């Protein structure tokens, strides 16, 4: 990076707030996904004003800027391309206000997701969206990705919990969108902004809703001898009229992997388990727990266990939330997928994933938000073996093709970023994408902010992507077609 730029960045943010040595930059060349690119410099902003000054400088010099939180993203959204500046918001990590009467908190973007819930618990409130990385990921990053999590099934994802934003535009201008009110007169730019993956502006202050802690929680573990039975249970629960707070599925391979890691009491001989959580008034939860247990047993669950205390409940969730990490213990590399399908198609899709797994000779573990059809197949491979690496990518593409065939989406919560950009044309037409680009340009006209992310360059995407493979859909035993 040009030394005069570095000097100016240091002048704005301070000497200790700019990284430019290769060994320092290496730490910022990846996120939790698969792509890697080294940035030209990393700068840590501490105030909105600094963010604004950095953006003004970058705009003048036409240097791309990539905003970054904790770097836990899975789609390459926080990875710089070219000689870009990575603008880290990690040091803007203060909870500015906990406003219990208004059921709101005002935070800086670098506040870690779980810390907000910890800080508000004593008031009887929490911040509902709970990505599995919530111990590390930042709320600013959650806003960029419109993050989900297991407990967003009943309560909604990040966008349903954000009411106000302070945003720095690429030219350094600071604007307000929304505030503490549920909504406001005029266009809902707050809702539109959430999930824009750092391509429209940099969020420097966020007003979020706080949710009342439930009076009662019941956690059930449905244990199955076949994956199909578990998948059918998901469909049956959805139709039963009960919306659980969370409805997660782990297949047998994942169960064994997770159990070896956390010893939560997951049955290692199961073909699949459902982790089901019900929240709310005591009477409601008790009735729902009974109803859900009955549905599980009707769908041939071998057993339905109830977490007997908070400790056991936490242990089960620890297993679920550290599942990706548990895989890291048994495989040198893994590729996390994030596809969405209509819920009734869970059984077929799992059968197709099984076929893809066999075809490429790669283990694919399944752990996912079954209740909203958001799959996270983990493809295990050894990145030192180029053939396996190539096959993992091919397998991933086939899984995505399967999701799309069923009318699903290429990403439910991890974002498009770099990773899925090539797949956008499989979901959207050129007209769709062209209108999205026009809207982005209203905020970010020169594409200084997070360039070449999310929306593919319309003229080149066809050649990059090529046609998607056609999935073969096999009939599944016990499932009506």
């Amino acid at each position: 990076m040009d030394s005069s730029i570095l000097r100016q960045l240091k002048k704005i943010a301070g000497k200790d707030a700019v990284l430019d040595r290769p060994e320092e930059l290496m730490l910022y060349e990846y996120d939790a996904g698969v792509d890697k690119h080294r940035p030209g410099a990393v700068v840590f902003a501490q105030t909105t004003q600094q963010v604004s000054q950095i953006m003004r400088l970058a705009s003048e010099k036409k240097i791309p800027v990539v905003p970054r939180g904790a770097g836990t993203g899975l789609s390459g959204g926080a990875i710089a391309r070219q000689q870009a500046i990575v603008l880290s918001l990690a040091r803007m990590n203060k909870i500015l206000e906990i406003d219990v009467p208004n059921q709101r908190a005002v935070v800086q973007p670098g506040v870690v997701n779980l810390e907000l819930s910890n800080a508000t618990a004593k008031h009887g409130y929490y911040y509902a969206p709970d990505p599995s990385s919530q111990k590390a990921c930042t709320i600013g990053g959650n806003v960029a990705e419109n993050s989900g999590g297991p407990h967003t099934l009943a309560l909604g994802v990040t966008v349903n919990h954000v009411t106000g934003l302070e945003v720095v535009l690429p030219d350094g201008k600071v604007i307000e969108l929304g505030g503490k009110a549920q909504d406001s007169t005029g266009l809902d730019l707050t809702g539109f902004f959430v999930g824009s993956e750092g391509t429209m502006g940099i969020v420097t202050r966020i007003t979020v809703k706080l949710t009342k802690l439930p009076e009662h929680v019941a956690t059930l573990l449905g244990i199955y001898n076949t994956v199909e039975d578990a998948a059918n249970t998901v469909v049956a629960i959805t139709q039963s009229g009960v919306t659980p707070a969370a409805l997660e599925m782990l297949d047998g391979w994942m169960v064994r992997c997770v159990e070896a890691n956390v010893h939560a009491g997951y049955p290692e001989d199961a073909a699949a388990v459902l982790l089901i959580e019900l929240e709310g008034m005591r009477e409601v939860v008790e009735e729902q727990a009974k109803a859900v247990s009955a549905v599980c047993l009707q769908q041939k669950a071998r057993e339905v266990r109830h977490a007997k205390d908070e400790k056991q409940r936490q242990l089960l969730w620890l297993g679920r939330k550290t599942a990706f990490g548990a895989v890291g213990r048994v495989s040198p590399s893994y590729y996390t997928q994030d596809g969405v399908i209509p819920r009734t198609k869970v059984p077929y899709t799992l059968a197709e994933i099984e076929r893809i797994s066999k075809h490429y000779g790669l283990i694919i573990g399944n752990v996912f938000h079954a209740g909203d059809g958001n799959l996270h197949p983990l493809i295990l491979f050894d990145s030192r073996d180029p053939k396996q690496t190539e096959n993992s990518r091919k397998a991933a593409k086939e899984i995505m093709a399967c999701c799309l065939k069923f009318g699903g989406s290429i990403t439910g919560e991890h974002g498009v970023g770099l990773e899925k950009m090539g797949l956008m044309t499989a979901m959207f037409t050129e007209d769709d994408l062209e209108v999205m680009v026009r809207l982005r340009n209203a905020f970010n006209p020169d594409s200084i902010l997070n360039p070449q992310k999310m929306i593919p360059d319309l003229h080149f995407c066809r050649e990059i992507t090529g046609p998607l493979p056609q999935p073969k859909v096999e009939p599944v035993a016990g499932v009506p077609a």
Partner: protein
Amino acid sequence: MSTVSSPASVERDLAAIVGEGQVARTDFEINGVVPAAVVSPGSPEEVGAVLRLANERDLVVAPAGGLTKQQIGGVPERIDILLSTTRLNKVEEYDPGDLTIAVAAGLPFAEMQSRLGEHHQWVPCDAANLERATIGGLLATGAAGPLKSTFGHMRDFCIGIQFVTTDGKVVKGGGRVVKNVAGYDLMKLLTGSYGSLAVITRANFKVFPRPRQTRTFVCAFHSLDEALNFRTRLFQSPLTPMCMEIVSPGASEYLRNPEPAHDPDDYAPEQPVSLPAVEWQIVLRAAGSDNVLARYARELGSAVTRTLEGAAEEQFWGWISHFEQGVLARHRNAMVLYTHLAIQNVGPALQALERTAPDYNLIPAAVGRAATGNLVLAFVPLSVDPPSAMQYANCVSAFRGMLPAGSSAEVAQCPTEAKLHFDVWGTTPTDVNMMRAVKRAIDPKNILNRGRFIV
């Protein structure tokens, strides 16, 4: 006017797109402006062709559905084409197992709801006039009723959207699955855009199991403060009612069916006229089993003055949803505002209403979502002293002046002549220049609803 072609040739060209019978004249007025033609396209592609033609010839287009909310907004500069979506009225796909539905924008909401009802499902929206109001119109106006308290509004149910831009492109956002972050959230952008960005032609929704049993608890208080203190206790309690409505003393009169119009010469009251109501009410609607509803009754205890069930309950919530219509049916010249407030600003906003209205010889009445700050405020004129246009303007500015920072309040209804004297949309915490930039990006020639919306 900069229209380059004569009305007759425009009508001919429009007919060439949509067919002879689908171009018509109307005497329907939108804030005093009569559209030159009503055009009813039969497909999104025809919508595209109509918009392309309008864009080329600088014709101003007003998208329309069931015409239930066209009077909201500023006075249109002119309307060359009222673009009716009523022929786009199919349920495109409904999969009860997935709890998702795809419908064309011109479908009346009630038709979708009755289809969902066959499987005991619903989209939890209880805005007004759902028999006529269309899916597209409800989305465009971000309409909601008391259920917004817990379920949110159209933007929270809409998982996919198709719309047509002024350059004729048929564009989609989102999809058919309940969780999806691929691409920008165009559903949020279009919801509440009042037809000023694009014409919505289709929408996909996530749907919900419909509660099998509900009960309504009416709790009455002597003052606003007491009502709000009760609300605070509810927030702290484990109860999770699906509606939490606040009703001002003046509103009670509109929460019943209007009496048949009397012949003024035939004055024969059957009952002595009762004293004006002085009570503030918090009305809760809860769903659940007998056991759950019994818990509500227990926890609420002596605060409950009335319990409603069945038909009486449905009727009560229908009146709440149609409060604005109830006011306007009795007082054509009433002014109605929608507020957007932080929870703790509900009190100050209601006080502002109660204080400003009498200063302008208006009677205050309000209902609203006590848990989200979305109130419907009515300023009702006395029939003996109709206010002047300036009085409305002064009243609005006095009222807005009393609102705490961060609030916004748009005037949804008032006599058209008054609209020339103030900004019906008012200020908003969201950057208006950014809104305008978005509008320019998608409708650069400003042919959609020119003069109506904030952008």
